[in-house]
Structures are given as C-alpha cells and as structure tokens.
C-alpha cells in the first residue's frame, strides 16, 4: 500500500499495530478523505423525505440516515429548539450552504465532497473541495484567535495516536446541517481524528455552546480514504452557481 511505503519506524521499535507513520513518527493522515453519512442533511436520525423543490423530484429529495448524534437528539434549550424549527421551515432562505457560504466546523468535514489533508510537523492543512474552503491546524498554539471567522482557528496536538483539534473563534453564521441546526458565536468544537487501519479515520466532534444547548454533545462517524487511481480534489467554485439566485433580481431586464 502506498501509505505504508512512506516511513518505516527506527529499528528496535515495536511496529505491530501502529499503522502508517510520517517521518516525524506521527500517524499519517495525508490523503484524500470523504464521509458517507447523510449528516449534512440532518445530524439526527431521519427517514427519507421529499425535497423543498418540486421540479427536482427525487434528485432533490432527502435520503434517510440513522443519525450521527450520540444520544440521538441534540440537547437544545427550549427557545433554541423553536429557532431550529423556524430555521428548518425557512431553510431555502436561511441555510448558508444554499448561498455557497463557507461551511464552518464541523460541517466542512461531512459535506458530500472530498477533502485533502496535507500534514507537516508544524501545520496540518485541510483543504475542502466544497467552495475551496480551507483551514490550517496550528500544531503550536498561536494564542487566542485575533478575530472570529467562518472556519475558526484550529489548534492541534496529538494524544497518543489521536489528532485532537481545538476550534475557537467561530462566528455565528454557519449551520451544522441542512435541517436548521445552528449555534452562536460561543461555539467551541473539539475534534478527534484516529486512524482505524490505513484507509479509515474515526472522527468525533464535541460541540459546546452554552447559549444554545443545555450541555455539550457529540457526533461521530467514519471518514473513508478515496482510493480511486489518481484521485484528486477538483474545483467546486459554487459562487458562480449562486449568482443568479443572489443577484438575479438586479439583472437588467432586456
């Protein structure tokens, strides 16, 4: 396997269950990855349902999913749950994904598009095919985020063979999914990436936002390596595709 050819541990070290490693001895997360869940439609379990656009027929319909939330339901505060429901009703207008806005964290991880991890000792770059969103994980803490942003500031460290990423400085503009699950700018996300064999990453994210939820909650799912020959990220520059939607009303009439 290509990934195993990368680096062999120094003589004398036990190698049995360690998996592929980078030159600096860390689990090798390099490569192109993608989830297979329907988390981006709805983090909670959901039966299939008709979509919001009749002309799209089955193409626009929501597929079913068993849910990725531990404990099945997201622990909203009562008033926040009301907001989530309004969000859902108005999702065509309100879901930032419709407008090709940056997806934030953790949504970027489970968009139905691949992403590529470029792992160096000081930084781990995660480049997402969707809207060429990207974030750099600082492996050395640079201090508090200087400003809030859509993708936040990510600081990483290794706990054994698990990459732990602490994300702060997130603004309140993103959603967790297409079902209206949302957060405030107090959002704090801690992700954990652990290789389970060379082609599977087990992913967990703990969500903490005291303004919206009664307690922290967790999602988890596997992320699969894209194994096609010569696989690469391609462009999904969707800004162009939403211009008619967002600016068509200002277009000069013929």
């Amino acid at each position, binding site marked *: 396997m290509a990934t195993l050819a990368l680096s062999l541990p120094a003589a004398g070290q036990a190698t049995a269950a360690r998996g592929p490693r980078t030159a600096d001895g860390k689990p090798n997360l390099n490569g192109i990855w993608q989830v297979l869940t329907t988390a981006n439609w709805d983090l909670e379990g959901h039966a299939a349902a008709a979509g919001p656009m009749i002309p799209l027929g089955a193409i626009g319909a929501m597929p079913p999913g068993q849910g990725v939330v531990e404990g099945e339901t997201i622990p909203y505060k009562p008033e926040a749950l009301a907001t989530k429901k309004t969000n859902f009703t108005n999702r065509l207008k309100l879901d930032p994904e419709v407008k090709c806005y*940056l997806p934030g964290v953790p949504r970027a991880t489970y968009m139905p598009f691949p992403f*590529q991890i*470029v792992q160096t000792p000081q930084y781990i*770059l995660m480049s997402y095919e969707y809207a060429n969103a990207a974030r750099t994980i600082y492996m050395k803490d640079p201090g508090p985020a200087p400003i809030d942003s859509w*993708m936040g500031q990510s600081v990483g460290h290794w706990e054994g063979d698990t990459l732990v990423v602490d994300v702060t400085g997130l603004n309140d503009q993103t959603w967790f999914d297409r079902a209206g699950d949302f957060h405030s700018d107090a959002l704090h996300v801690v992700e954990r990436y652990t290789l389970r064999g060379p082609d599977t990453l087990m992913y967990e994210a703990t969500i903490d936002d005291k303004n919206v939820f009664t307690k922290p909650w967790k999602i988890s799912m596997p992320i699969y390596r894209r194994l096609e020959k010569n696989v690469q990220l391609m462009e999904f*520059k969707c800004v162009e595709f939403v211009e008619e939607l967002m600016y068509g009303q200002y*277009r000069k009439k013929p």
Partner: protein
Amino acid sequence: MKRYSIVLGIAAACLGAPLVQGQARVKAVAYVVPRTADGQPDLQGIWNNATITPLERPADLSGKAFFTPAEAAAYEKEWLQQNNRDRRAGEGASDVAGAYNQAWFDRGTKVVPTLRTSLIIDPADGKIPYSAEGLKRLAAAAEYSRMHPADGPEDLALTDRCLSWGTAGPPMLPGPYNDNYQIFQAPGYVAIVVEMIHDVRIIPLDGRPHLPANVRQWMGDPRGHWEGNTLVVETTNFTGKSHFRGATQNMRLVERFTRTDANTLTYDFTVKDPATFTKPWSASVPMTKAAGPIYEYACHEGNYALPDVLAGARAQEKKAAGGARK
C-alpha cells in the same frame, strides 16, 4: 560560486508588522536549501509578493530594462506620492472613486530587487506580445464592458464577483492588498494556500496525467516535478472564463519556484497561448518570507458591493428613463 542579489525587506501585508530585514549584498555564500522529511527542497512558510514594479514596462521607460539604484529610489518615492495624493474631485461619484489613498491598499513600497522596470523578463521589451487576434479579442471585450458595465453579475470583474483574484491566478501576481501565500509540503504534494480567496493549489508530484481535456477549471489543473532545487509546475485545463490577460482556455502555464535563500523564493512563470500571443512570454516575481498568519478572506460572504453595484446601475437607468420621459 553564485552571487546573490540584494534582499530587500518588504512590509508584511496583513498584520502591518514590518519584517526586520537588513539590506545586504551577500557575497559568494552558497545557500543550501533545507529539505523536508521526504527529501523535497523546503519551500514551506508564509510568503508575500507585493511589489510596485508593474507587469509590463511603462511607456515612459521604454527601452530601459533596469533602474539604477538611485533611479529605483526616485521611482519609489514618486510612486508613493502619486498614489497617496488627494485625488478627490469634490463632486459626487468621482469624489468617492478618488478617495482611496494608500491607507486602503497594500501594494508594497519597493520595486523588485533586480531593479528591472517590469516583471516581464521575456520579451526584452517588457511587454506582453499580443497577436493581432489577441488584441482584437481584448478590444472587443473592452468595448463590451464599456457598453454593458453592469447588466448582470457576469459583467463585473472576477474580483468583484469574489470568484478569483489575481493573487491566485495562476499565475500568481501581486494585487491591491494581502498578497500572501502559505506553502505546505507532504510526501508527493506541494500545497499553496492563497489568502485571497482561500484558494488552495494542491500540486501532485507523482507524474499522474492531467484531468480529461473536457474538464476545465478556473485555476486549471497543476502537475509538479522537481528539477534540482526548482519546483516546476505545469498547468493546463483552464476555462475560458479566467482569461488571464486575455488568454483563452488553451493557455498553458509553466511556473518555477526556487528558494534562493532563507527569506526569498524566486517565482518565474511562462505563459503560452498561440491564439492570443505571438510567442510565449515570461515574468519573474520574487516572494519574500512574511510573518503571517494567513487570515480568512470570506469575500463572497461579505460581498455587499456586488448587489449594490447592480442595484445602483438599475437605479441610474430608472432615473435616466424618468428624465427622458419629461
């Protein structure tokens, strides 16, 4: 032994914290490029390519390939004065348009260290060698723009539409501000993060073929390999929509990255497009280590300008139509 040219400090774009960099003429010290763990020459770090040297040689410098140091200093002073003067005309629209001084931009303050009067190094006249057909297409596009400045979003610049900035290209050319890049390397890949607009060029080094010819992308499709210490990137599969300096979708680009010292990356590129240029042409844009960090440029998410430009145009038309009816 090689001699190295002057290394100049260039103000870091985003933080405003100046890079501390002495001017020095480095004598006969061979720079040994450090290596990444997998043996690639190490190009990693945060880089900035801001410069006041224009792509093409200005008309009034025709025939003059290089400044003398004194001329360069004078040029820089003059440039700064010109771009910082108060151009407000005192009346409506042009008052707003002319109200931008250097506080709003970060184009840099220096010419390139080679003191060349253009970024273009070939042809010798420092100008883009347009073919007749290329010029015709450019003129037609300019005419169309004049007639349809803002009918719809497609009439506006790619920057205004938050689709693509000149800093990303490729090729990667400095722009009005935030000419910042961060390079990452992992086995088999070089990744270039371009601050505007959070574009990431992921360049595979394994010799795989390009995408199929019918697949076209804004930033094309790059393939890299090492020639000694120089990263050579060949990019094809452009769309017709990026039209770099008028080029068609059949443009082919070759870029060369060489780390000449700890704080300098030389970046040379060659553009080929027989439908637009009479011959291939090349430019050289030095990149300098910068402090960083790279910020998030959420261009589209904050793009109030585009709908305002369009709505404004519609309002103007309405006003004009109302006036005509009287």
